[in-house]
């Protein structure tokens, strides 16, 4: 008797959950159609003016952005994509993998291929691991646009970069050299050795320092991995401090320089040992202000996401992207196309003085 009662209750709850689940979904869909309808009319007028291709109504295209993981960087990217949705009525959404690895991105892509979306934008955790799935998507007629993956640009329709990676790496080097007065030992961190852009910046920075600042010495031949976590950066920084007590500077190509600053503060070295890091205002402003981080470098994730998704729409609708195309986001108003890579010109530099101007 009791068992029966329990099973009845269970099935009722399950059915209820199902119904509730469906209910919200349909409500959502209703919402989006109404908003897109509104935007449609304005946008239709826009496109009619700017291009000859009148049939390219953004609301007819479903674009999905797959980010690396859930953190404030990609939260900001999502706000940019929301903005794009509001501006153009493009049917665009964001998918956030539970864990920051290639496997979860692949499974999301497989789902999207099955749903037959028009375009997929992805910020790959491990670009090479995604290539077979990207190929599968393109075989199915889906446009694929990547961000932060210039090495696999040949396998996709377009790769959007905020800037030429070499020059961004040199920006790290130049800022670090300035902070360290051009002399002393330094160490470089990346999120992971497979992370292409991190590695490109690291290599460009090290090469630049070797050529221009002979008094500066890299303590290792390979960058240290912080695993894209503050904890990782903190623990690795403590180790480096111990192994090389005379170290004078760190640069971190993943946005976890805060972990290094925490480690320095624990050892009363904040400000003595310089830190230049990829930085998000929300995660790094305290460190820039208390002086433990001398420089933060960045690009606006919201703009990059905006530009990548807009480019995906342009390609999917047959309008294409070429040198000089305006992707409507700050710094991407005239992209530089080299092969399959579209470069913007959008680096951001943070110091204690300007950090409050940004709120992402």
């Amino acid at each position, binding site marked *: 008797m009791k068992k029966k009662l329990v099973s009845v209750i269970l099935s009722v709850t399950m059915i209820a959950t199902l119904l509730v689940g469906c209910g919200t979904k349909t409500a959502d869909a209703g919402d989006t159609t109404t908003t897109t309808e509104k935007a449609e009319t304005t946008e239709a007028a826009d496109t009619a003016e700017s291009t000859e291709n009148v049939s390219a109504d953004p609301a007819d295209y479903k674009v999905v952005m797959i980010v690396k993981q859930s*953190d404030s960087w990609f939260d900001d990217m999502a706000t940019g994509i929301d903005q794009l949705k509001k501006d153009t009525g493009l049917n665009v959404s964001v998918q956030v993998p539970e864990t920051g690895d290639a496997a979860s991105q692949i499974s999301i892509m497989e789902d999207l291929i099955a749903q037959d979306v028009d375009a997929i934008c992805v910020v790959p955790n491990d670009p090479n691991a995604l290539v077979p799935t990207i190929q599968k998507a393109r075989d199915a007629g889906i446009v694929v646009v990547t961000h932060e993956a210039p090495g696999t640009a040949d396998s996709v329709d377009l790769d959007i970069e905020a800037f030429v990676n070499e020059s961004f790496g040199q920006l790290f080097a130049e800022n670090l050299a300035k902070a360290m007065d051009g002399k002393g030992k330094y160490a470089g961190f990346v999120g992971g050795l497979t992370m292409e852009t991190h590695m490109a910046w690291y290599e460009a920075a090290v090469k630049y320092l070797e050529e221009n600042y002979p008094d500066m010495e890299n303590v290792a031949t390979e960058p240290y991995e912080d695993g894209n976590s503050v904890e990782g950066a903190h623990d690795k920084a403590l180790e480096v401090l111990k192994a090389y007590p005379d170290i004078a500077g760190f640069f971190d190509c993943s946005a976890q320089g805060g972990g290094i600053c925490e480690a320095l503060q624990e050892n009363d070295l904040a400000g*003595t040992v310089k830190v230049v890091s990829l930085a998000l205002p929300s995660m790094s402003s305290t460190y820039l202000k208390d002086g433990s981080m001398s420089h933060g470098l960045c690009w606006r994730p919201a703009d990059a996401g905006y530009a990548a998704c807009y480019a995906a729409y342009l390609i999917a609708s047959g309008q294409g992207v070429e040198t000089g195309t305006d992707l409507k986001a700050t710094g991407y108003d005239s992209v530089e196309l080299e092969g399959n890579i579209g470069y913007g010109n959008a680096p951001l530099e943070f110091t204690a003085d300007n950090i409050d101007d940004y709120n992402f």
Partner: protein
Amino acid sequence: MTKKIDQFQKMLLIIIVIYSVFVSVKNPQFLQVQTVFDIVKTSSTTMIVAIGLLVVMISGGIDVSFMAIALFGSYTSLLVMINTGINSLVFAFALSMLIGTCLGLVNALLINWLKLPPFIITLGTQNLFHGIMTTFISDKSFGSGVLPSCLHEFGQGTLFKVATENGSAGLTVSLIPVLLAGIATYFVLRKTMIGRGIVAIGNDEESARRAGFNPFKIRLFVYAYSGALAGMMGIIYAAQVNALYPNKMVGDELMVVAAVVIGGTKITGGQGKIFGAVLGVLIIYLLNSTLILIGLSSSWNNLFVGAILVIAVAVTSYQERVKNRSHLIFTE
């Protein structure tokens, strides 16, 4: 803590000593007080959950949801604090541990009611808890600027400091919660009837029942206790990294399971020592944090830790076989 150090622990101590000697020969920088302080600090969070897991494993169960509980508890309580402006460490710990206890009770109730292996249940609840949190509470990340300031003070706090060559090194205050957890657990396991019951149902549930223990009540206690420690660990973790992410910690539970098993805890229950679990955690952190000192690049990290884990487990299992043979127990 233990009157006589058993074979496993002796083995672990020998491994730690040999490895430390090896590292100090390769790089004398290893031999300084800061090394100890750093390892204490970085391993403090893992120590706490390892002790919680130890209690569960002694009772014959297993819990792989504790990281999700730690995340749920700390994320939720810190979110409440950010939104209401409460700036009290006591509040953070109390709320987080309360949430942890409740989630632990959910585990125990499910295990007792469904009569399924605890591994399956907690694997399920791990995803369930994390999913509930990211879906219904929030999945935003928070940086150091918006977190309550008491958290950062705690994370950076030291019991005392010593000067080093180029700065100073301090012993973290996170050691206090670790010691509290260790002492409380020792007291519960050794000095209370419930502790005896935990060991008893770990050895044989039926015998324990006939001896008058109530396995259900003991299980409730065990999982709630593990949950409370997880909640406590979550706050310490957030304080140390000084940031709040909705996706950290979850995924690291097997490393803790490995540490506890290396510490000589029987996976089938009934046997395990706090000191062993502590040594197990220490070994993993020692390996993890000395690669740079001996000049190996990060690429070696996984290979090295994996190899030593297998060796450590093989050695401890060999030790047990020898011991069993000498007691004329032939298990294979």
